[in-house]
């Protein structure tokens, strides 16, 4: 063999992987998990949301196409999140963005996905605007939203006699939406909203000044329209200042199981909160938890992380149903297919996705157990009541989503 044919041969051999890679890219669904990997919302989204997404891929099994998962930290900043989303879609060919914690980031990414015709499955951002005024044909909002939290937790507090409220609100899209939605329920039930303070986010660690203001207003309920360590700090400091001992109730409007874990049962006992998934709810949720737990570093999955699992699973079913090429070509088509198919998974059971992108499933109201009632690590909740799926979320017509009128 002469030198020339040797070189030509080498060139051809070198090109083979390239051709194969291109064929592979056409047959690969790329999922980008964009959430908080390092800040206050890390434990309710973060690496464990990624682990749940991977679990969905594993449970779905090999079905003739590949699934690749990318991960990035948006640091709870809309500008950072929007930049990553654009890069992922334009340069890396990402087909679906998942989780997108923090409502301000989620709203920015929502617009980008609409513009670029890519799927946005949101689990951890809570603003109900994602399926309301700012809804998009490319969006599915999975786990919860501010309306559902307000109705379940806020409604329960009002029924228990808490008719005058003072809000401590995280000063960004999520806090504003939660305060607005809860305030509406309070007023509908004949209660009053006395006042609200807007606390800078992120970066507030001492809430005592706001708690003392709330106490001075002589309200019956302090509504915590915040999340993560903001909520746990508020609860801790309210106990320290004897606010709860004086009969004022705290409404932790968005409290998830990692927050309860952080507080410890001694501080958190007796609080009520609303979730759509609890690891110890039934045999299927326990089976899912047993599968995914080894990847979670000792924690149990939060509802928001379970939402990532269920969202990915349903998306992959839709992709298989319509074909990879078509799913990659149009995010709107993929989401339409997801809406047309009933959902079914271990975490949320049977459900559906509405025309406005809202995933529908029952909402559970829990009370945090006392240390004596808790028999095992992460055994934290007592089920108080369940709101059926049709009543748990905002009625389709009331959200003001432009997709509905069309």
């Amino acid at each position, binding site marked *: 063999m002469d030198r020339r044919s040797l070189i030509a041969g080498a060139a051809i051999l070198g090109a083979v992987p390239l051709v194969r890679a291109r064929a592979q890219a056409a047959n690969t669904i790329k999922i980008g998990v964009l959430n908080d990997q*390092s800040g206050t919302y890390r434990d309710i989204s973060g690496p464990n949301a990624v682990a749940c997404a991977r679990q969905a891929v594993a449970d779905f099994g090999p079905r003739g196409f590949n699934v690749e998962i990318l991960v990035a930290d948006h640091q709870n900043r809309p500008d950072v999140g929007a930049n990553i989303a654009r890069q992922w879609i334009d340069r890396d060919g990402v087909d679906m963005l998942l989780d997108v914690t923090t409502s301000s980031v989620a709203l920015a990414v929502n617009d980008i996905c609409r513009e670029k015709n890519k799927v946005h499955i949101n689990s951890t951002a809570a603003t109900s605007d994602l399926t309301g005024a700012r809804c998009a044909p490319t969006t599915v909002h999975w786990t919860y939203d501010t309306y559902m939290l307000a109705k379940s937790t806020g409604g329960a507090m009002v029924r228990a006699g808490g008719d005058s409220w003072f809000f401590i609100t995280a000063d960004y899209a999520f806090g504003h939406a939660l305060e607005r939605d809860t305030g509406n329920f309070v007023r509908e039930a004949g209660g009053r909203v006395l006042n609200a303070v807007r606390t*800078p986010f992120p970066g507030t660690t001492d809430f005592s000044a706001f708690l*003392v203001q709330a106490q001075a207003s002589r309200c019956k309920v302090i509504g915590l329209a915040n999340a993560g360590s903001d909520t746990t*700090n508020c609860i*801790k400091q309210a106990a320290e*200042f004897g606010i709860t001992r*004086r009969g004022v109730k705290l409404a932790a409007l968005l409290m998830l199981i990692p927050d309860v*874990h952080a507080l410890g049962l001694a501080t958190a006992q007796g609080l009520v909160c609303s979730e759509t998934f609890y690891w110890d709810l039934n045999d299927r949720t326990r089976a899912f938890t047993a599968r995914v737990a080894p990847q979670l570093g000792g924690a149990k999955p939060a509802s928001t992380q379970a939402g990532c699992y269920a969202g990915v699973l349903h998306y992959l079913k839709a992709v298989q149903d319509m074909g990879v090429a078509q799913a990659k070509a149009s995010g709107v088509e993929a989401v339409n297919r997801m809406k047309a198919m009933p959902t079914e998974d271990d975490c949320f059971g049977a459900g559906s996705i509405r025309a406005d992108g809202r995933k529908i499933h029952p909402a559970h109201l829990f009370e945090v157990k006392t240390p004596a009632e808790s028999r095992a690590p992460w055994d934290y909740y007592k089920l108080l009541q369940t709101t059926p799926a049709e009543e748990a979320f905002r009625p389709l017509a009331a959200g003001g989503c432009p997709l509905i009128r069309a």
Partner: protein
Amino acid sequence: MDELFGIPLPLLFGQLLLGLINGAFYAMLSLGLAVIFGLLNVINFTHGAQFMMGAFAAWMLLNWFGVNYWFALILVPIIIGATGIVLEKLMISRLYKLDHLYGLLLTFGIGLVIEGVFRNEFGSSGLPYRIPPELSGAWDLGFMFMPVYRGWVVVFAAAVCLATWLVIEKTRLGANLRAATENPALVQAFGINVPRMVTLTYGAGVALAALGGVLAAPIYSVNPQMGSNLIIVVFAVVVIGGMGSILGSVITGFGLGIIEGLTKVFYPEASATVIFVIMIIVLLARPAGLFGRTA
């Protein structure tokens, strides 16, 4: 008169007191920063991480070894101070001949690494640390319900600040220290071991941060980002007080705590920014800071 600018006076008193408590943290942390900057000329951006390590060390001592709060108050500054000494010997001491910027970059980077390691190990939502039983409960001051523990924080922090100031201004050790700040070569010529003094000063500054961390553990959630939330504010406090000025940083720390507290009543949305607005105004009017000497 029971109102001022439409705010009931009792509420205002309450906010002043709460501001003073936050000011105690600012004062203690900025004191450590000022001491380190005064002698080492290094802006110690690891300070926030060292504050966080102090809180975590208290948590570990309690949960892993059963060591209670009172012993943690003594042990933690020693342990974390020792890690500071190692850090100074191994890394920071190599940068004294270079521009300030290198020290800032190094300590900032180390801070990020420490924070990342703790986040990997403990997650971000934080760990519970109970208020010691001797300090739980609260006093009813009439205008407000005052937790005993917060009162303890103010008194203890003020005492630590005063003691540090006395050591630096009134003792022979402090005199040597101040002299070494002015002219290290000359002080060394008098037979004083300046490099060792520098190392110990860094250790002491770090110990102050760790002590702040122990004080903070029962009231803030013990989480990896607790220091980075504070360090920027504390840095602003040092700048306003005058870089390297001990008394300046203490007074400014308490003062800004109070101003921040008042902002939380009148315009809560701005409570995270008010300190920086003041910093800009002070830098425009007095570039060396309120208590700094012009270079």
